[in-house]
């Protein structure tokens, strides 16, 4: 397994920037009460079938201010990548 890199935001595909963004949201936006969270079905679609969602809708911006939704998306991405 690769050793985790030091914080950096420059790489070819901007993947590191988005990783830093997720870390930022997890650090700064705890939402233990799950206020305004997207339901599990929607989070699954986000990861497995994003074409089914209209991501131009501003309500999906919730994931960028919710640590719990961001963590959940991370879990779902790992499940997807293992399949």
């Amino acid at each position: 397994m690769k050793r985790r890199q030091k914080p950096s935001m420059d790489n070819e595909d901007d993947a590191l920037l988005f990783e830093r963004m997720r870390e930022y949201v997890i650090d700064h936006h705890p939402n233990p009460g799950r206020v305004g969270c997207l339901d599990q079905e929607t989070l699954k679609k986000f990861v497995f079938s994003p074409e089914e969602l209209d991501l131009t809708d501003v309500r999906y911006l919730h994931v960028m201010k919710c640590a719990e939704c961001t963590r959940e998306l991370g879990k779902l991405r790992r499940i997807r990548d293992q399949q």
Partner: protein
Amino acid sequence: MASPAPSDFCWVLNSAPRQTWISRILQTAAEAYWQDARRIVAARLGDESLAPEILEAAVRKTADHFSNSPPAKTEEVVARLGQFFRSEVRRKARKYKRLVFAGSAINLDRSIGYSGTISVESKIDLDTMLYDTEPEIRAALLSRYGNGESWRNIAKRLGITEDAIRKRCHRVLGRLRRRIASSHSSK
């Protein structure tokens, strides 16, 4: 006091001679856009009561835009109205930010110095930055954030080149990068 009807915003068209087709379509467009307009203003400016004034300005600009054009489709007028509306919202948001930060230098982090744009951006959160962007760019960024999709896949889905999507996202990515960097430096 009752909320204004969307068609009320088209009163701004009565003050000057206009082509009938645009007046008629703008009334329909304003009605179609009204709920979105209220939602955007509430989310972006925190004060839904500003929506009528902003929509009026957008109606006026849309009418001016189409004043010398042949009749256009309703969807085209709605799209243009939406663009002018969002532009007006951004203008108002910038104006409010300047008012909020005037005289509050004591609260600014002196270690990063005071520079209007950078200090303001260091207080704006990620989702707020994306409210400001074009819907298609916002969708692409959300897709990367939540789904982890590559630029190549997103470009393929949108039917454009990878280069094109990266160019379109370049400015907002710069803002996001600065925002994240400023949060690290303030720790």
